């Protein structure tokens, strides 16, 4: 034991020190500013039509200009459209699509989770078996089949991804609600004569909010990537509409000579996913601090 202690203590102490490299306040501040990146990206996405220097659909210069040439920051594509403008519009579509799917998933999954958790028993059993069934299937592949059946398009893609995405939220919300249902304050509310609906809405559902917010924020990055993959496969909007995944896929033939044409939209996806993941971690840290 005496030999072991220092060995064990050393890495732990080092870890603690590195965790407290910043004073508590500064760490909070850092987390808040990283979480604020979500707002910044949302603002950029909202302002895409203002920020884009050119029309994303019309050729505005020589085709295949390298980044920086002729005043085009990210160059021009195969028929002379401004890559930067297309990326900005594509970023808008990607970002809001991811947020919409999360809202959809949270609403569907939240309702199912609250119902299952509140009623328990057979209702819980049936709903959770259905949820497990969805979780047991490969989500991205199933989403592709759903979009293909409905016909490619933006709304159908959102619908399909929401359909495969809600089970995660149903599981989390149901777990939180089940745990809360056994707590004294809920029993007190029942004894005070509150109906099932009121108990579920006022006393159970709010308890599931923190866990759901953390999961949802950690999900933004995943969703950006999944939606980009579907768009890459041709399941997004039809041709001239700027979309990050589709723009990369359609311009693959330029890769060997004009690398920037397919690469820039991919880099935009990377940036979006990274912001989503960083902000998700920051929001989780902030929630855990409370």
């Amino acid at each position: 034991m005496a030999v072991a202690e220092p060995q064990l203590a050393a890495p732990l102490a080092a870890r603690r020190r590195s965790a407290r490299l910043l004073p508590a306040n500064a760490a909070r501040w850092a987390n808040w500013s990283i979480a604020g990146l979500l707002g910044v990206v949302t603002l950029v996405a909202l302002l895409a039509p203002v920020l884009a220097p050119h029309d994303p659909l019309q050729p505005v210069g020589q085709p295949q200009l390298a980044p920086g040439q002729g005043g085009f920051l990210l160059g021009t594509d195969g028929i002379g459209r401004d890559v930067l403008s297309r990326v900005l519009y594509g970023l808008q579509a990607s970002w809001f699509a991811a947020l919409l799917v999360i809202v959809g998933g949270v609403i569907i999954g939240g309702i199912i989770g609250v119902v299952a958790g509140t009623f328990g028993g057979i209702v819980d059993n049936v709903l959770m078996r259905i949820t497990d069934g969805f979780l047991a299937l490969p989500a991205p592949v199933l989403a592709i089949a759903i979009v293909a059946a409905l016909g490619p398009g933006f709304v159908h893609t959102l619908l399909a991804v929401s359909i495969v995405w809600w089970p995660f939220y149903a599981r989390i919300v149901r777990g939180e609600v089940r745990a809360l249902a056994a707590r004294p304050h809920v029993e007190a509310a029942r004894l005070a004569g509150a109906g099932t609906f009121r108990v579920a809405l006022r006393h159970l559902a709010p308890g599931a909010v923190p866990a759901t917010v953390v999961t949802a924020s950690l999900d933004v990055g995943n969703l950006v990537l999944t939606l980009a993959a579907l768009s890459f496969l041709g399941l997004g909007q039809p041709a001239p509409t700027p979309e990050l995944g589709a723009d990369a896929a359609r311009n693959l033939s330029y890769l060997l000579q004009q690398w920037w044409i397919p690469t820039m939209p991919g880099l935009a996806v990377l940036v979006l996913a990274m912001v989503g993941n960083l902000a998700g971690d920051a929001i989780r840290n902030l929630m855990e601090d409370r």
Partner: protein
Amino acid sequence: MLQLAGKRLGAMVVIILALTAVMFGLQKISPLDPVHAMLGQSASAQAVAAERHVLGLDQPITAQYLHYLAGLLHGDLGTSYRTRNPLSSDLGTAFPATAELTLYGLIFALILAVLLAVATTLRWPGSWLFRLILFVGASMPPFLLAIGGILLFFVNLGWLPATGRTSIHNPPTGPTGLLTIDGLLAGQFNVVTDALSHLLLPALALAIGPAVSIGRVLRSSLVSELRSDYARTARAKGQRERQVLIRHVIRNAIGPALSMTGLQAGLMFGGVLVIEQVFSWPGMGQYMTQSIPVADFPAIAAVTLVLGIGYVLINTVVDLLQAAADPRIDV
């Protein structure tokens, strides 16, 4: 253990049945009419009625589903609208390419995950590189990784080929369909090395994302297990940190990483569709991507079914492996 295996296999059958029901249901709600897809839009009413009868569409819906299910059990996946071939023969040629790519992707992912986790836990020199991979890898779209790989290793360095499975004209065609194994069996080692050089880039591009997710889970369970009492006892006996890790900790920490591996396999099946398109890989992904623009739903459903069954199989195996690694597990 036997009871657990029985339960898991039962659940597997139920889920696969559910998957077939979903695919059948999607075909039904789809606005694409299979009769017109086969005959063209201007077919006469008589021809349409005859074709409906041939396809069994004039029967009640439960009978149609049972017919579909019976077909599946006989290996009949339907007929492609695009190629007019039975899907079982079309996918039969595409399947080995996808299987080989996914297999190598999974192997690379596991090796990389263990490297990432162990290097960052034990703080090897140079582990900053692994930290960087853990950080960026989680946000990297697979197609961007593939594009970057082609630009670096094909365009700039010229070390690796960028498209296809092999550049050898008549590679061995049996018995497994996996070029690296068939080449080995046929004694043609140039086929093996050529196939490996074609596999390296796409399999790595496929592997990074799952490797990062698995690596993160493995790393966090390694860190918590290294603080446990039994690890301290092992250190007290005078074992070095590496021995403690290899002899005692890995076995206890592997469980969560294994279930993550099962989950990530699902994402890999999504990723392989994208990767195949970038590398012109002649597998099921490319087949499906060609089917999407022409709304060839039977082809898409068949690929989904094959990938879905593969996913369910992998997860069942993972569950059983987990129970074997940790006898306390009993679900």
